[in-house]
């Protein structure tokens, strides 16, 4: 049984359990033997150099990619990309993509209400009302009738967050949510994510924003070369990393020449 | 099967005629199309409008209709009996010229404005800019879609069989008549179809290769 360093909350059943998971495309191994747990209400930030399989890992958690060995258990259900129950599982996991992936043929409001209506079976009235709540949450109530092509990158990403929230998921996953944004809009998105964390949302965030990881994250996982190098409180990893590779990474990110 | 071998000479001749008439029609279409396409990029509104109507007109008239018009109508008008070859060539050229004008317009518009400005700034006259800078670049862009026009023209040339011009399709139909009752009567149609598919596929591939090469160069 692995212990979870830096954890002060009372141990309950974790919402997400990842047991020695391996993912490969053909002969190419993306990540190998990954294990960790996420407790409800925790904000876990995954950091590491590009191309170490962080994004692919998030895709595996909601079955957009299959895994070759190991086990991912979400709220007691085993994640299997090829099984029928994957749909019921994905309803409970919200996903925010690097490139937003808003539906370009629908307005912002329709983007948010489509899945609650079609997947959860909500009435249009209820879905619209709840969507407007979400728009207030992301401070975009004045842009609800705009099409994605009329929104800035930061606005699009906030709509994407509203879209995920509307499904009332028990886990929110963020795949480099600010990497494709103009520098001036990054702050807006991070502020909303911070609010979500304060509301007690369980979040799994892949990001390069070390400031966010330090302030908002309960835990930080450093991945490199397809394995977890270090796992602990963000301040710990950032100030005195135990591993040499973590140290190098932290230095390169925090103190770029 | 054996019967078909007896007719293989006729088939080759038919194919030759099909390739020839579509080639002649394509050249005429390219000449007319270049003028019309040039007109469609003109600065003068009236020229753009007239040439646009020309292109849109032939785009909305079926080849068969143009063919009948040229073959029967022009004969009636001029009193000169046009041969099936001449009539078919004119009809195919008119239809092709509308497509070619689109190709030429697209090619000319693909050349960045900066090219013209750069050339003018070196003191070239307007015609020199067109001749030495714009067209040499535009023609490279035009060739792949022009290959597509050739394939269309080649396919459309089969309609000349309707007015009795003996090209590949008509050759097939005539052979089919003369072997009626034999097992070869269906086979001959399959053979004709296969010849068209192979020829057009080969030409299309050539066009695609030219396009890829262009992409590489650019």
């Amino acid at each position: 049984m692995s212990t979870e360093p830096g954890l002060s909350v009372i141990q309950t059943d974790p919402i997400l359990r990842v047991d020695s998971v391996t993912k490969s495309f053909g002969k190419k191994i993306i990540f190998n033997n990954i294990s960790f747990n996420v407790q409800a209400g925790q904000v876990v930030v995954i950091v590491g150099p590009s191309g170490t399989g962080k994004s692919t890992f998030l895709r595996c958690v909601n079955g957009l990619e299959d895994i070759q060995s190991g086990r991912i258990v979400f709220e007691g259900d085993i994640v299997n990309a090829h099984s029928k129950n994957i749909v019921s599982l994905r309803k409970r996991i919200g996903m925010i993509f690097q490139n937003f992936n808003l539906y370009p043929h629908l307005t912002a409001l329709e983007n948010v209400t489509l899945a609650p209506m079609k997947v959860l079976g909500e009435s249009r009235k209820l879905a619209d009302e709840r969507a407007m709540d979400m728009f207030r949450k992301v401070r975009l109530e004045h842009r609800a009738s705009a099409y994605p092509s009329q929104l800035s990158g930061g606005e699009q990403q906030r709509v994407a967050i509203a879209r995920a929230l509307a499904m009332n998921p028990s886990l929110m996953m963020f795949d480099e949510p600010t990497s494709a944004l103009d520098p001036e809009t990054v702050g807006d998105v991070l502020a909303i994510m911070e609010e979500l964390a304060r509301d007690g949302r369980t979040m799994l965030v892949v990001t390069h924003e070390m400031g966010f990881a330090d302030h908002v994250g309960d835990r930080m996982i450093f991945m490199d070369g397809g394995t977890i190098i270090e796992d602990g409180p963000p301040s710990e990893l950032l100030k005195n990393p135990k591993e040499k590779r973590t140290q190098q990474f932290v230095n390169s990110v925090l103190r770029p020449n | 099967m054996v019967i078909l071998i007896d007719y293989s000479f006729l088939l080759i001749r038919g194919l030759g005629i099909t390739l020839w008439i579509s080639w002649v029609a394509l050249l005429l279409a390219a000449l007319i199309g270049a003028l019309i396409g040039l007109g469609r990029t003109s600065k003068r509104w009236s020229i753009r409008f007239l040439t646009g109507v020309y292109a849109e007109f032939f785009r909305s008239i079926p080849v068969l209709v143009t063919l009948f018009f040229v073959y029967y109508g022009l004969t009636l008008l001029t009193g000169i009996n046009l041969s099936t070859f001449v009539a078919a060539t004119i009809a195919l050229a008119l239809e092709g010229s509308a497509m070619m004008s689109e190709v030429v317009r697209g090619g000319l518009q693909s050349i960045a404005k900066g090219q013209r400005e750069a050339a003018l700034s070196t003191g070239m006259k307007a015609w020199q800019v067109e001749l030495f800078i714009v067209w040499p670049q535009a023609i490279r862009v035009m060739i792949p879609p022009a290959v597509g026009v050739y394939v269309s023209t080649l396919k459309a040339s089969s309609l000349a069989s309707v007015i009795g011009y003996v090209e590949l399709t008509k050759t097939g139909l005539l052979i089919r008549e003369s072997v009626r009752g034999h097992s070869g009567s269906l086979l001959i149609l399959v053979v004709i179809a296969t010849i068209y598919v192979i020829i057009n596929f080969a030409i299309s591939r050539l066009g695609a290769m030219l396009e890829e090469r262009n992409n590489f160069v650019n």
Partner: protein
Amino acid sequence: MYNFNLFFIFPYLDSLQWAIWNTLQISVTATFLSIIFGVLMALVRLSNYKYLRLCGVFYVEVVRNMPMVVLLYLIFFGLPSFGIVLSGYISGLTALTMNSTAFMTEIFRSGFMAVSKGQFEAARAQGMTNTQLYRFIILPQVFRISYASLGNQIIGVIMGSSIMMIATIEEVTAWMFNTGSINFRYFEVFFVGGLVYFVLCQTVNLVRNALGKIIFKTAAAGGPW
């Protein structure tokens, strides 16, 4: 000198009306069928199974490189050899639909390829089933991307319908040919028939542009649409 006089057409306006109806009917039917088959064949061409994909490629390359007259002759004269005798109308419709399907397949294939992979992922991540994913997210976008080419192909079908006279269908080109050979007023006949085709095609163009503005409200707003 030829004396152009549309008066000579009057006795044939009744048959022209039927000819236009036939042209419209066969064009609309072939368009409708080839859109359905085209979407399905596009999915076949993008299938994960290599042999299925190759079948799709084979169909498209064979049919679109073959003149439609030759396809029509194959159906009209060829199928009876196998004991299948089709009426002129069904033969013509089959040829026109098969031909248009090949082009529709390519139109929809490039449409599907233009929809980004992220759209599939986003919809799946929201828990949509495959049916919901295609119905609400992918097909509306494919339709929107293919919209302009779709209009061109519909004009292509109307142009192709002229060949149906060979299958003894009394459409507009057949009317022109028959009427001309009765009254020898070829100029008037072609003028009227040509006008019919021109009006039909321009109607398609106008409807396409107007409908496009209504359906795709964002068109004026720029962006990828």
